[in-house]
């Protein structure tokens, strides 16, 4: 077990990062080498001008306004989940560095920083996790069941697992961010540092599942994060 933990702490992170970026590069290349179409696949009404179309696509990406118009329950599920995810990703910046300027500005000490993170992180976690269960239930019922592939279930379970191990650290332990900084900076500079201890055992599970997600990401439907913008621009060409 210790060997496995050691691998996930110090070896596989490099593989995960390499596969993540390499895989995304490969997928971009695969899109690029396909022949483009010469026709306009526009959907109307569409905004005028290149800048207008780009702006419209971006607004749609960040608000899902198109979905809001036609399917409100799914919009709530999809939008809130993605919003929670965005907040969580921003919050995770604290694992690598910190919002020093923000704390200076607010003149917050360590205790206040922790309390703020605890509240904001928990809210973001709930925003992310509850919709995941809704989306999972949706997959199990009605016509969406026909559309659901093993990949869809796998990703939902993976994300839920990551979220729950994250909650474990957030709610049941008090994470010392300094430990995380030391550990991750050590990984980045190839000067390995001891794994964080304040996080309990949840950290290694959380970290390992995130690595699995990173490896799987480029070969899954999660590529919609990048391709979605491209396809939106096709519809506005």
């Amino acid at each position, binding site marked *: 077990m210790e060997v496995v933990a050691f691998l996930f702490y110090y070896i596989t992170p490099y593989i995960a990062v390499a596969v993540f970026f390499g895989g995304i590069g490969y997928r971009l290349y695969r899109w690029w080498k396909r022949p483009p179409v010469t026709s306009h*696949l526009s959907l109307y009404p569409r905004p005028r001008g290149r800048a207008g179309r780009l702006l419209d696509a971006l607004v749609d990406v960040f608000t899902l306004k198109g979905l809001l118009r036609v399917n409100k329950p799914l919009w709530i599920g999809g939008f809130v989940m993605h919003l929670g995810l965005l907040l969580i990703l921003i919050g995770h910046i604290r694992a690598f560095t910190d919002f020093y300027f923000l704390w200076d500005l607010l003149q917050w000490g360590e205790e206040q920083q922790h309390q703020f993170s605890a509240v904001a992180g928990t809210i973001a976690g709930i925003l992310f996790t509850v919709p995941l269960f809704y989306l999972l239930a949706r997959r199990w019922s009605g016509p969406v069941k026909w559309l659901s592939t093993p990949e869809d279930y796998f990703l939902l379970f993976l994300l839920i697992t990551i979220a729950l191990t994250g909650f474990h650290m957030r709610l049941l332990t008090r994470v010392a961010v300094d430990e995380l900084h030391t550990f991750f900076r050590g990984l980045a500079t190839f000067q390995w540092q001891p794994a964080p201890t304040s996080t309990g055992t949840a950290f290694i599970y959380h970290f390992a599942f995130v690595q699995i997600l990173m490896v799987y990401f480029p070969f899954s439907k999660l590529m919609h994060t990048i*391709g979605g913008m491209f396809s939106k621009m096709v519809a506005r060409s």
Partner: protein
Amino acid sequence: MGVLTQLVQNLRQRISRPLQYYYDVCVRCGACIDACHFYSYSRDPAHIPAYRVMLAKRLTQGGNGSNELVRWYRDLGMLDGRAVEELEKAMWECTGCRRCAVFCPFDLDTALMISAGRYTLLQEGIGPEMIAEIGNAEVSKGEIIDMIKDFYLEQVKSLEARLQEEFASDLQIPVEKEGARVLYVPLVGEHAIVPAAKIFHAAGEDWTLSLFTATNHSYFVGDMAKAKQAARWIVEEAKRLGVKVIAYPECGHATRTLFSFFEGWFGDEIAGIERVNILQLVADYLQEGRIRVQPGTFDVPLTYHDPCNLGRNGGIFEEPRLLIRSVATDFRELTPNRELNWCCGGGGGLVAAPEMKEVRMKAGRKKVEQIQRTGAKWVVTACENCKAQLRDLNEHYKLDVEIKGVIDLVADALVL
């Protein structure tokens, strides 16, 4: 080589960049489930847009060597025959209306994939070959035009004489007029020429009638090489006569080829030639005061059906409404309308395929409900496909409505 193996190879060759995005981006969220009028009656997964994409993707993606793929497909419990049957349903029972693309959070265009799938299936003789046959006739028309030209001119002359008697003694229907401003491309039959001729006359437009028709059935079956060839006759005619504007009639799919495909097909050849639908021209005439109409000519309750290819696929939403409101007193909107309007159920060439009649009538149920809710007596639209389908629906469901064209209304309300 099995049918399925051939299908896989053909489909693979048609994977363009957008199609690859669609394959990779679809998260199977199911937003499109509520968009499809076929699924709304059948509850058959093969009618769900995302499922159609999954079917095609399963055939064409993953692993190398199509034989292996076919085996994999069969191993999943899909016998060769059943896979083809399901694919046939997914590809042909679709009107290409792209309502699902409006519903999709990523704007995925199922119709693009359907187009590739149809072409592939037809190569194997699977699907309504009638549509392809009409398409072939349109392609070869340019080669035999000299043989049928005299007959056509004669017909036009007699129509002109009749309109001079009925409408205006100095009305003309010019054909092959060099230097005319507008080349108007009609449909088969005088119904697409008569109202246009009246309006052009009233507006004092310098126009000429095309020897060809705007319809393009090869486009319906996804045979883009032939679709381009059929359109080429019109482009050559426009260039020979030196026109400034190509105007297409009340025909959805033809207008879509004009707006979405001409630029890619002909590039510089059509640079400087404006491409419009007749509704846009007529709306301009009205706004510029080049024609006058009698307001309130029609007081029956009427509604407007947005044809998919003019509305969400062509951007013509307001022109027909402007024209209808200028001549009618009781205009009622369908709900939903504009880009969210339900397809009539006859698009994608299905109206031209007799074996699709039953499916069409079922797929039109949403449209029937929409019309009934308005209480309208006339259903006005601007697409030949929609008109044919709406007439069939009217008969089948005993709707007791009349189907009208937008420019018919304008032509009947003209004040000379």
